[in-house]
């Protein structure tokens, strides 16, 4: 059949189709999947992809948020509103409860963060509910250990990732076979870049939490980053709180997520800003990756997202 011009899907529609395929494979091959929804941009995209994969039916899995208790209030408010709009069910796994029950010990001092503690809460929640697959919004362009991770990322019964012994992943054939107690983390948007995510949010007209847009906030400078100041934040000598116009490129725990100076107040302006940036999102905003050269790899091996 001779065709003069071959219609093609745009790169964004091709990535979308691939991600929907991954989600349906998981729904079909696992007994009890869950979708990890943080209220951040990547998991916002996952929710839209789930709508595209499963509507007009309800999602064949619940949503779950690992709440550190130090999340931005704007994000929690958005999370609850979005879940209500979708009519889906949300499970909140609380780091505070893990602390209260003695499963983990709160870090102390001005640099205390609940980032590491989340791993225990996440693994406990997966075990408690018997989830055998968990969708996450991680992307391979985010970080160098993630560049090596599979779409179906196998975890043993300790929740551990073994980067040197991953299952080969061929064509679009995913091996979802696991034993009881093991689980798989599934990353449908592995092949998306940060810019793809923003272009998709823009093209779909998706709402995102207000902290992604520029706003005036009380901040303090530490290790070259601008952190949000809130009631109870311990400052180190010489640090002071001041007002600045910032926005957030990533949405994590308030204690380890830095804002960036920005005037971008609409989706279009954010897309333009991201297209021109010369710094990676995690390099610019995440203290948790600065611990060592292999900080993310080490956390993932221990069962992190």
């Amino acid at each position: 059949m001779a065709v003069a011009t071959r219609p093609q899907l745009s790169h964004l529609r091709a990535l979308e189709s691939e991600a929907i395929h991954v989600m349906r494979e998981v729904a079909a091959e696992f007994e009890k999947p869950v979708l990890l929804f943080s209220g951040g941009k990547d998991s916002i995209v996952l929710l839209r992809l789930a709508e595209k994969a499963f509507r007009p039916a309800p999602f064949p899995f619940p949503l779950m948020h690992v709440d550190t208790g130090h999340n931005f209030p704007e994000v929690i408010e958005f999370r609850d509103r979005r879940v209500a709009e979708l009519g889906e069910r949300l499970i909140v796994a609380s780091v505070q409860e893990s602390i209260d029950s003695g499963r983990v010990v709160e870090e102390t001092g001005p640099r205390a963060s609940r980032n590491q503690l989340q791993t225990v809460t996440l693994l406990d929640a997966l075990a408690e509910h018997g989830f055998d697959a968990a969708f996450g919004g991680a992307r391979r362009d985010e970080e160098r250990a993630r560049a090596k991770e599979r779409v179906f990322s196998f975890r043993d019964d300790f929740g551990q990732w073994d980067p040197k012994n991953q299952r080969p992943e061929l064509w679009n054939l995913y091996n979802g076979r696991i034993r009881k107690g093991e689980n798989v983390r599934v990353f449908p948007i592995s092949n998306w870049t940060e810019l793809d995510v923003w272009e998709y949010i823009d093209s779909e007209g998706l709402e995102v939490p207000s902290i992604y847009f520029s706003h005036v906030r009380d901040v303090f400078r530490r290790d070259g980053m601008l952190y949000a100041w809130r009631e109870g934040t311990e400052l180190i000598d010489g640090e002071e709180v001041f007002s600045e116009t910032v926005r957030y490129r990533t949405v994590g725990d308030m204690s380890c997520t830095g804002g960036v100076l920005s005037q971008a107040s609409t989706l279009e302006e954010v897309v333009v800003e991201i297209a021109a940036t010369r710094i990676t999102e995690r390099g610019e905003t995440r203290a948790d990756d600065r611990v060592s050269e292999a900080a993310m790899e080490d956390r993932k091996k221990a069962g992190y997202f």
Partner: protein
Amino acid sequence: MTLDLLRFTTAGAVDDGKSTLIGRLLFDSKQVFEDQLEHVAAASERRGGEGVLDLALLTDGLRAEREQGITIDVAYRYFATPVRRFIIADCPGHRQYTRNMVTGASTADLAVVLVDARRGVTEQSKRHAFISALLGIPRMVVAINKMDLVEHSQARFDELVAEFADFAAGLGAITGRRAPDGVGADSAGQAAAISYIPISALNGDNVVERSRTMAWYDGPALLELLEQVEVAYDHPFDRPARFPVQWVIRPGAGISVGVDRDAGAGAADADYRGYAGQLASGALRRGDEVAVLPSGGRTRIAAIDTYDGELDEALAPMSLTLRLEDELDISRGELICRPDEAATVARELAADVCWMTDKPLRAGGRYALKHTSRSATAIVDRIEDLVDVHTLRRSQPADELALNDIGRVHLRTNVPLAFDAYTSNRRTGSFILIDESSNETVGAGLIAAPDG
């Protein structure tokens, strides 16, 4: 219209400069971010390189890779130019080379094969070219690297091109593909079209910018070629429609297995019954007569649904949901196609299998098999031959396939499969084999033909 997303694979032996080449592509196309560059500068210094950026460090992701200076696993890289977006599957050439190269090649539109200008066409470059051809990658670029170490010699370049072309001439015969019939050739069953470029990844010659030291070469730099090359999409449209059913959407039927939920979204559509999947190849239109394989039922497409509304026509590789005119009993794993261009249905088949684990494949072996959205059990009847990658010959019958071996294997399955030959359809012609006790993926299969 060229595609705006190109997936390509790179592979090469230790020290042939693959990581440096990718680092150079990213660096010279200004795709390296400042914090990544700081990281590379700091790491280069720790490893004793004074003031020199070791671009290979850009691509090594794992701690062990940085410590040992090697690449362990396939890594995926993303970069974009104003013309195109690129996904690189960066495959290490030494450890578990077949496994990694086959993995990277399985989703690629183009392969960059590296040849070291001093060492010539090695077994490693031949293996990569063979695997690229076997996996049906429609375009191949042979990058003859380290030209700076052979005095940018045109004679050496010509010599290596002749040697490689001589080897490549045998690829079509062993992979069951016809020679390409033109520069833009990429249709089903054809061997890859090959381009040759002399480069120096270390100095950046002919990587992003054309080289001034090799004025005798008048072709494009590598990036120019990657931007302009025409490649049929992974799911070409001018092939028979293939729609493997992944998931049945029935809002009224309590499909959400194992999930406690309150009646929520979608409860209004109690009569809805849609077959969800990704169109693997071809196009489907509303009203088309379709056959469902292997059961053989016939009906017509009542509607093509997407979240964004109904479509008159769907094209590969779209994910969509079909509603059919008649109520047939269709479940996951069945294939919807047109009755006059139906896939082959059989329980016995012959396939080239790439073996990926230490414990060899032998006759009598039993494995879980995944083909499109269908899961089956397969038993190995016999191993017909083994491919010698160096000579491109198939040997006599073999007793086993060891790690990294590729050979023609005859299999039987417990349920019928609806498939095509891999040379005519990568999606419906491929399968994986899974060890039933360890659950590891142990083999990659490319279907040659039905058996018997």
